[in-house]
């Protein structure tokens, strides 16, 4: 307990420095605005924020990106409520009851309860994170290379298997990402691999470029349909953004129930905010005495998924920070940025750079407070950005993707690589192949191969090291379960309907 308090006070010292308060406010504000804009989710938001963070130093960069991340979670539901278009995947559930509420003339209450639920969900989860981060990191330090390799196998196959379309396609995406991570000079032997004789590829393909290609360029390509839409009509005149006592009575329990649910779903690799929000919504609908009101503007139907998706976004930070294994697209982007700044997220981050790790966690407490201010009193002003038509917005995102890519290495070759990955992202969208397994695989691929080779080196080439310890066996069983479970579920569903 004392250790946690001293860690937290160290973190607060960092987070309360005026410059860091400024960064978290900037991140939260930009994140909220980007999260609001349909077609631009948190991953894209963090990706286009990247170049801004290059000169901030690791603490500032991490705090700004984390602010952008949960700011986007707050903001995503603004557009769900007001224009019935989710700002990101996790805000889909907010359209179910949020938009009907707004139609009933209760937009103020809808905006308020979603911000309050997000705040409570985020805050409770941050507190849980404060208590769990160190034990998880300590456990991870005990892992040898074989265990670490299998942990990554589990995280990746769970992500691939949970993709909503087709398990095989999830794995295709996964292998593609791992293949990309093998391009470049092999660090141990100096052998040049898969570079096709191109000198610029010897250093490997920087993963941030792929992320910008897939998330910024690819998202714009995917959203071309929206470009020819006219200007959206957005409600800009509001009464006070607040809820009634009756609203609160109906919502507080669903919020408290959905927070732990969202948090656990967030910690699991691959599941993420969208699934957390949908699960919380269905859960509340099942528990409700008035399930018929759901979908027609039940306030608890908005509160529950909002609390769950913010809780999930905090939960998703735990595996990234403590194990160095991101569980979602957005946390992968953040990890890519950390690696670029010369920091290796993982168990040692808490030992070597406690100021950075705890500074970020403490800043999340402050960030949540800032985000609720941005999203309640200031919401009236901010929702005006929803009136910006896509035909202006998307060219600007393209411009940001180019400058972000160029700023990484100051190389024009990177711009071409980004365009190629933008097109790959578009093809994957057309073929219904999920992109997040590829992003995650690409970012952990290098480490995964290193662990694999270290393990084989230790055992002298004996493969049995991969099932030689209880942790290994557990991880193998988890991996198998994560692949088999969705297949069985799918088969059952098919049997049920057919």
């Amino acid at each position: 307990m004392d250790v946690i308090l001293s860690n937290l006070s160290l973190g607060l010292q960092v987070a309360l420095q005026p410059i860091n308060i400024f960064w978290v406010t900037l991140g939260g504000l930009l994140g909220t605005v980007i999260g609001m804009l349909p077609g631009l989710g948190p991953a894209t938001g963090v990706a286009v924020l990247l170049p801004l963070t290059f000169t901030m130093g690791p603490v500032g960069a991490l705090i700004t990106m984390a602010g952008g991340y949960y700011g986007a979670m707050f903001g995503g539901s603004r557009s769900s409520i007001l224009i019935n278009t989710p700002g990101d995947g996790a805000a889909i559930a907010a359209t179910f009851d949020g938009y009907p509420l707004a139609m009933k003339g209760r937009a103020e209450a809808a905006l308020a309860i979603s911000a309050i639920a997000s705040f409570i969900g985020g805050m409770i989860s941050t507190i849980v994170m404060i208590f769990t981060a160190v034990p998880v990191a300590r456990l991870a330090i005990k892992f040898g290379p074989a265990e670490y390799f299998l942990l990554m196998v589990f995280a990746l196959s769970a992500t691939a298997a949970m993709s909503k379309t087709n398990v095989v396609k999830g794995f295709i995406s996964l292998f593609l990402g791992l293949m990309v991570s093998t391009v470049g000079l092999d660090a141990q032997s100096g052998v040049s691999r898969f570079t096709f004789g191109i000198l610029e590829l010897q250093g490997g393909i920087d993963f941030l470029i792929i992320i910008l290609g897939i998330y910024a360029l690819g998202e714009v390509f995917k959203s071309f349909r929206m470009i020819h839409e006219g200007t959206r009509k957005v409600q800009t005149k509001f009464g006070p953004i607040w809820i009634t006592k009756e609203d609160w009575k109906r919502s507080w329990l669903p919020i408290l129930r959905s927070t732990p649910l969202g948090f656990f779903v967030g910690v699991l690799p691959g599941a993420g905010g969208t699934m957390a929000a949908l699960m919380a919504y269905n859960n509340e609908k099942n528990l409700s005495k008035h399930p018929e009101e759901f979908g027609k503007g039940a306030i608890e139907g908005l509160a529950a998924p909002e609390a769950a998706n913010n809780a999930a976004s905090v939960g998703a930070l735990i595996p990234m920070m403590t194990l160095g294994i991101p569980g979602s697209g957005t946390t992968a982007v953040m990890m890519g940025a950390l690696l670029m700044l010369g920091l290796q997220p993982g168990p040692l981050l808490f030992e070597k750079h406690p100021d950075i790790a705890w500074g970020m966690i403490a800043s999340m407490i402050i960030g949540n407070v800032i985000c609720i201010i941005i999203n309640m009193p200031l919401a009236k002003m901010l929702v005006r950005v929803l009136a910006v038509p896509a035909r202006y917005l998307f060219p600007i995102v393209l411009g940001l993707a180019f400058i972000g890519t160029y700023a990484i290495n100051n190389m024009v070759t990177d711009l071409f690589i980004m365009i190629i990955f933008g097109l790959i992202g578009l093809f994957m969208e057309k073929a219904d192949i999920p992109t997040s397994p590829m992003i995650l695989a690409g970012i952990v691929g290098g480490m995964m191969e290193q662990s694999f080779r270290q393990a084989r080196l230790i055992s002298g080439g004996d493969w049995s090291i991969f099932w030689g310890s209880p942790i290994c066996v557990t991880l193998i069983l988890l991996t198998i379960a994560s692949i088999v479970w969705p297949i069985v579920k799918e088969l059952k569903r098919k049997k049920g309907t057919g």
Partner: protein
Amino acid sequence: MTINTITGILSFLIGIGYSYMAWTLPRATVGNPIAPSVFPLMLGLGMTIMGILLLIQEKAWLLKKERKSVSLTLTQYGKSIATVTFLCILYAFFFERLGYLLSTFLFLSSVLSLFNGKERWKSILGVSIGFSVGVYALFGEVLNIQLPRMPFLGL
């Protein structure tokens, strides 16, 4: 041919090609000579298997119901995506040659006029100039990153 068949064939070919490249990699001079190839070979094998599995799945589904096959004619969206991709390639090509300010202005104004039509030229000009000058100044002055200058004016 459906998009899944195409994906299956592509994955299969990528898997085979990648495995071949992994196998023919130069042997390492230190340590185990095939160490750099082992992990890639596993990936290549995995990808090949996934390609085959997808093809089998697709075949099994095809027996049950007709599936829409991919048409090769470009839709309106396809055309604008192709045009924007072409503009992106041009932009990348001229990024350093023309300098950031000019290449960005030209790129943005052409993409914006593609989406907005020429009659909105005032806002198109405003956004393109505002963005290119704004980003150039932000990077040069605030972040101290010098973006490519224009060759003749030195801007």
